[in-house]
């Protein structure tokens, strides 16, 4: 199936459901620690274990974070709402109901504007609500997957972690850009969440989870039946999942078939979706208001304070970058496409000149991201790190080459820039005596190259520069070395 052909004949409608693990210190309804990676079943109490007699008490910070998320997404905050029980049986659920919100979410009816190229799309936000996470099942058997497993093991450390669910309204009219819009939305959402400081939003760690809904319809017809795709664990997967689902649905529809409303699973390896185990009937969760908790009625003054105290959100930052810092429209588009607007802005905020910040993120760092097959924002290096590197280069403490080595070091070790520089001995050799000596050595060792340069082939000096760089373990400033060599060879640079 040809994608362009599909979007010529069909219109997609997409929707996204995102679950965010909040970075609170304690769980949603009890005081157990939320720290990641603990020994199994060591962060559990009567409440999150679902022992008979245990009762929940709501985490105020989680509620505050949810409201802040809603405000950042331009939602209305409920003046009165409740938790509800979502009843179903599953071993990772200690109570066999999840305390969540049903028809009374904390935040409703907002929007998030996302940029794709030079198009801006308004993604409507249906609701933002608060719930608790489940424990973790490990399936033991030949494949480690649930199908064909012999038995399972359950760890409740994660049971009860606060989870915010953000549901978009359906987004029609994106045409061929649907996959990009989906990815841009998740990217933008993730950036907002990171800016708010409510979660570390690491998709690869599961603190940000996405389900994508896709449907197709022929132009002029009603929206088609949608499918839900789960197991979308990275920004690239979001884009690929939408694209592949559009292609799959088009093929079915072209063949005269109908789309079944079902849950599908994204396959990382192949990039397509596979149907999940179909359920006999839609699950009836028998929702009712949680009687062990009392309603929430956020004080409007408190909400207003939270609104005022919101940090500069990415959208506003973009406007400021464009206007105050004089970033050109073309640059905005280029940075947007590379997904680095926030990063550039944050790097500039950390003190770097905007041009340098842009160059690094669009240049070396974008290259590194590509090599690792991740988004630039997923690189384990922060805007603050990058600003520091830029500053060191500006001071002359690092050459560009050394700066790249420093960046590599941060990416590898996660240490901060100065620590990497010290550990690897990255230092511009500014001792001109040593450089002069190294230059003389290089000229002596490469007489034919030296002759060429003397003869007018200035470009050939690069080989000598290389030799000096090698001799100084890359720690010389290449531009300075070139100058010295040319001078010694009696040539104008």
């Amino acid at each position: 199936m040809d994608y362009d052909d599909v979007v010529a004949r069909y219109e997609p409608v997409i929707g996204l459901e995102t679950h965010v693990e909040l970075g609170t210190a304690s769980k949603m309804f009890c005081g157990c620690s939320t720290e990641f990676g603990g020994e199994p079943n060591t962060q559990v109490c009567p409440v999150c274990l679902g022992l008979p007699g245990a009762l929940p008490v709501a985490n105020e910070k989680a509620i505050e974070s949810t409201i802040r998320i809603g405000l950042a997404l331009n939602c209305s905050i409920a003046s009165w709402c409740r938790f509800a029980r979502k009843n179903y049986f599953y071993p990772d659920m200690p109570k066999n109901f999840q305390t969540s919100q049903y028809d009374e979410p904390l935040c409703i009816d907002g929007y998030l504007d996302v940029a794709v190229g030079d198009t801006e799309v308004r993604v409507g936000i249906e609701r933002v609500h608060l719930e608790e996470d489940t424990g973790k099942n490990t399936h033991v058997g030949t494949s480690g997957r649930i199908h064909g497993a012999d038995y399972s093991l359950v760890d409740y450390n994660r049971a009860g972690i606060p989870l915010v669910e953000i549901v978009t309204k359906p987004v029609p009219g994106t045409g061929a850009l649907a996959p990009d819009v989906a990815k841009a939305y998740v990217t933008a959402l993730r950036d907002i969440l990171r800016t708010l400081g409510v979660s570390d939003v690491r998709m690869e760690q599961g603190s940000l989870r996405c389900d994508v809904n896709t449907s197709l319809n022929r132009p002029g017809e009603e929206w088609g039946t949608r499918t839900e795709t789960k197991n979308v664990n990275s920004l690239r997967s979001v884009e690929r999942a939408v694209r592949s689902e559009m292609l799959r649905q088009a093929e079915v529809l072209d063949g005269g078939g109908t789309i079944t409303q079902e849950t599908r699973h994204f396959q990382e390896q192949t990039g397509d979706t596979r149907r999940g185990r179909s359920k006999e009937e839609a699950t009836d969760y028998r929702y009712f208001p949680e009687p062990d908790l009392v309603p929430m009625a956020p004080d409007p003054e408190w909400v207003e304070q939270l609104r005022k105290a919101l940090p500069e959100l990415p959208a506003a930052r973009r406007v400021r970058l464009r206007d105050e810092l004089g970033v050109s429209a073309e640059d905005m588009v280029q940075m947007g496409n590379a997904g680095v607007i926030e990063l550039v802005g944050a790097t500039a905020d950390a003190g770097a000149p905007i041009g340098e910040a842009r160059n690094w993120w669009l240049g070396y760092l974008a290259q590194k991201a590509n090599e690792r097959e991740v988004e630039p924002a997923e690189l384990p290096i922060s805007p603050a790190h990058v600003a520091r590197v830029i500053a060191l280069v500006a001071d002359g403490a690092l050459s560009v080459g050394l700066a790249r080595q420093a960046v590599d070091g941060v990416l590898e070790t996660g240490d901060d820039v100065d620590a990497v520089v010290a550990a690897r001995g990255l230092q511009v050799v500014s001792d001109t005596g040593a450089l002069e000596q190294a230059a003389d050595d290089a000229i002596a060792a490469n007489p034919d190259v030296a002759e060429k340069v003397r003869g007018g082939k200035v470009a050939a000096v690069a080989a000598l520069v290389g030799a000096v760089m090698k001799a100084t373990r890359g720690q010389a400033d290449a531009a300075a070395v070139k100058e010295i060599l040319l001078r010694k060879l009696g040539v104008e640079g």
Partner: protein
Amino acid sequence: MTDLTRMSASEIAALVAGGEVAAVEVAQAHLDRITTIDSQVHAFLHVDTTGALEAAKAVDTARANGTVLGPLAGVPLAMKDVVVTKGLPTTAGSKILEGWHPPYDATITERIKNAGIVMLGKTNMDEFAMGSSTENSAYGPTHNPWDLSRIPGGSSGGSSAAVAAFEAPLSIGTDTGGSIRQPAAVTGIVGHKPTYGGVSRYGLIAFSSSLDQAGPFGRTVLDTALLHEVMGGYDPRDSTSINAPVPPVVAAAREGAAAGSLAGVRVGVVRELSGEGYQPGVLAAYDAAVGTLRELGAEVVEVSCPRFEYALAAYYLIAPSECSSNLARFDAVRYGLRVGDDGANSLEEVMSLTREAGFGPEVKRRIMIGTYALSSGYYEAYYGQAQKVRTLIARDFAAAFERADVLVSPSTPVVAFGIGEVVDPLTMYRNDLCTLPASLAGTPAISVPCGLSEGLPVGLQIMAPALADDRCYRVAAAYEAAAGTLTIPEVS
């Protein structure tokens, strides 16, 4: 020395505090009584001899060291087995929790222990607090000390019988639809259901979350009040706990008894809580009790609460709905019974087999009714509607409380019936007719003995507005002072 087991809690507390008798001696006397009589009564599921004597010893040591003791230090108590007690078996009267030892204490358990009260053991109950006769216990019924062939009421039948059989002067029960008041009435003792939120539910194995309340039993109003003050009060671990001081129930009990008069108190007789389905003997004893209140100077008025008629229907929608969800956690995964794990059965099968084997029929009925009532398409008509009826019942109370300070009714329409006599579920549910309205409204209500019918005790229910538990105790104490406490016959 009078038999320690015949004394009231306040008498025992005074003797212990005054050093006239050791708490260990008190505990031993009651443990001996249990050994003598409980094979016939079967009030207890577990007797904690070691723990009780240790707790009693600690009281004696504290006293010897000059520590000021709490008002009930050294007094023995029986705890309904729906309350979680660390390290002690807690079954909720069910097979599904047979052998389970909770790793934590309920808040009220902690409060009892901290008060130096000596917990003798855990008492029998209808399974998961569902029932009015304690016949739904998976461990066999409890027998009414007044007549061993009869039920002691339920679901707190074990706690009530323990006090009525002089096995303990105090006990704790829970009341969801009447499970403290009705057993108190049919065993001839005092039992109080606090304002909802007045006593912590943390550690109460949940039946119906918006209705459950733990409460005190005693043979006198004062004893009951003393226990109420120890149990009650705000608990940050229970989100539905009221952040306010315990109403002054002990002072009210004392004043009620001392005043000897109810002049200025308006007593509302609830028209709807009478009539068809009420035994004539019960109504006669009740009328006599109202007469006594009148003689004490109360102004007796008739009030009408028309929506009380729907209380049974609303309750038997709300409680099963909530319990169908509360009992979902019993799934053979983390604790309790596991049946059918033969290597071939799936988890779903093991869960279903376990729950089938572990739950009794009443529990299953209520789970299924609750599942039905919450189903999509039925929620609005059933659970949703029942919650609205609840509001209307609360409004009927509010209107009645404008004309009366307390409302009265019989505690239950019939006296203790024979074990095995009532098999039809609906007939059993009707034991709760009088008690359900206050449960649904969350308002406090006490049952105090008001005479006999055919030799069996009848209870007078006194209801008050939310947070006015003290009013219940004041009127009950005044009545008790005037009418005298019942003489409970020896178990034979």
